[in-house]
């Protein structure tokens, strides 16, 4: 069985089939990209994987385990972290606090210990901080530690979101349009980081992306969607040459 498998998953909002029996599987250490025109159901698939939506039918498997019924707050603990298309950071907290929230699924201390701030809590906090600092180092965020998110520029927020996801030490990271709103230079940086996330940290990457240059540069495999249905899948070159994909983007 594959590392991560989506098996004939469907999501229906009333009469609208947002996701229609989509199946794909991601191998460990892969960078897998989902492309498709607006409204194709890409983000819906992400929301299904992070369990914000309940699928109408179909199943999700992660490391051989059925995660279709797992509540959304336990997904992070299993090793799946995500970012959002329209940045969902904790705006009125410092960047450091944001990244420390990323460590939440590894929190071991009890409420009463925290109220007294026992030495065990202090130890755990320092351990979290060490892990967070590794991520800060990895993504070059040293300059923003104590800055409030509300005061950071868009491009930095995008990176902070990736950092927060990485702080949970995921095995699979879901990146929802990591390059949207970034300029060319920032997109370049992002493409290097996405590769480094895979090669240096050994995290499998599943992403949704519109920027075909970025997709071509980093993806191992691509899946094209339209109207909730799979059009094609394969290497970036194969998918881009597929007649259905061309028709979906340019019109038949």
């Amino acid at each position: 069985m594959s590392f991560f498998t989506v098996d004939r998953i469907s999501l229906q909002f009333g009469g609208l089939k947002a996701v229609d029996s989509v199946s794909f599987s991601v191998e460990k250490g892969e960078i897998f990209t989902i492309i498709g025109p607006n409204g194709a159901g890409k983000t819906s698939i992400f929301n299904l994987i992070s369990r914000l939506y309940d699928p109408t039918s179909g199943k999700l498997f992660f490391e051989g385990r059925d995660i279709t019924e797992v509540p959304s707050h336990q997904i992070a603990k299993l090793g799946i972290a995500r970012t959002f298309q329209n940045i969902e950071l904790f705006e009125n907290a410092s960047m450091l606090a944001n990244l420390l929230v990323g460590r939440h699924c590894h929190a071991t201390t009890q409420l009463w210990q925290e109220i007294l701030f026992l030495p065990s809590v202090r130890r755990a906090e320092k351990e979290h901080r060490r892990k967070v600092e590794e991520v800060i180092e990895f993504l070059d965020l040293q300059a923003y530690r104590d800055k409030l998110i509300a005061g950071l520029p868009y491009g930095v927020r995008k990176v902070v979101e990736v950092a927060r996801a990485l702080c949970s030490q995921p095995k699979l990271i879901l990146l929802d349009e990591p390059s949207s709103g970034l300029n060319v230079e920032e997109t370049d940086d992002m493409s290097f980081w996405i590769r480094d996330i895979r090669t240096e940290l050994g995290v499998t990457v599943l992403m949704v992306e519109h920027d075909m240059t970025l997709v071509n540069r980093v993806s191992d495999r691509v899946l094209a969607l339209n109207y909730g249905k799979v059009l094609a899948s394969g290497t970036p070159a194969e998918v881009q040459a597929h007649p259905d994909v061309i028709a979906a983007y340019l019109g038949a």
Partner: protein
Amino acid sequence: MRFVFKTDYDQDIRLLKHSGYWWSYGVLLAVLIAFPYLVGSYLQSQIVFVFIYAIVGVALIILTGFTGQASLGHAAFLAIGAYTAGFLQSQGISFIVYFPAAAIITGAVGAMVGFPALRLSGIYLVIATIAFAFIVEEILARWESVTHGNEGMRVRAIDFLGQPIPRDGDAFYFLCLLVLVGSILLAQNLLRSPTGRAFIAIRDSETAAKSMGIDLAGYKVKSFAISAALTGMAGVLFAHKMSFISPEMFTLLLSIEFIMVIIIGGAFGVHGAVLGAIFIVMVDPFLTALKDDVPVLGASLATTLGMAPDAAGKLRDTMSAIGSAAGLKGAIYGLIIMMFILFEPYGLYGRWLKVKLFFQLFPLYKKATFKRQKTYVKSERNR
């Protein structure tokens, strides 16, 4: 301006970040300890009320400021704490037992109120908490075997291991101070550990909090329970301070006063609770003075300016009629809240930080430093 050179993660964890904090909080503590020996009994009693309001303020800041869940039901939590103390004391149970018992009982009730919060947000949650407050008020009035109904209930002085603590003595002042310092420490400890960060995450983005592994239901209930338990403790102190409790003391207006504490003080930091409590407790004697003195002053001023004595007398009567009009207090409160929300949404503490920064940066302070900017519009909230 001070730049702290950080070489250790402990520096970000500890509460007193550098020696300046030790100095300022040390002096503050010394002044607070010296207060009972310096001021008269009236002012000391007012300060005790400041402490009690500040404890409730800390509780509300944990719930509203950190977790983002509004509540207009905190007068009810205060009432539950107060009545638990009154009832258990009348059963001959010692203060050492009923003080924590009141916190636990109120905390449990708070957790129960927290459950509807899982489904409600914003104005709907406020309405639910108001409903809860009315239910509690009604129960207090009807459950006569325990609460003595509308007649009210006497609460005797605290009996601390055989040592009485009279309500206007120094010992009572220090007890309230101790509870306040304890609840501030509790809030600050929460804030620097995973639970407090989870609260903040829930406030700023429930969707992201969920995907980061935060159990929304659990943490919302925890936040309500902690907030209610602290308010319950304040309720015990309140009952002893008043020495008499009755249902009409715990009305919606009291809940609104508590909300004002954090709006005026600033809900984003624990300091706001104390500043707001000082403001609210001190505004009442100020309004009373206004009611009594302003008409007399105005009339004598008018006479000096050459107004006929009977016309001046009429003026005084009109002014005192306005001053003692029903609902004036509520109107002034409403006005103050609106002014703060419009002009200083971060409250007195926010203003204090701005003034501090102005002096720290002195010649370099830019006018637009705190100008509010439009931030990126959020869409696709998965509520």
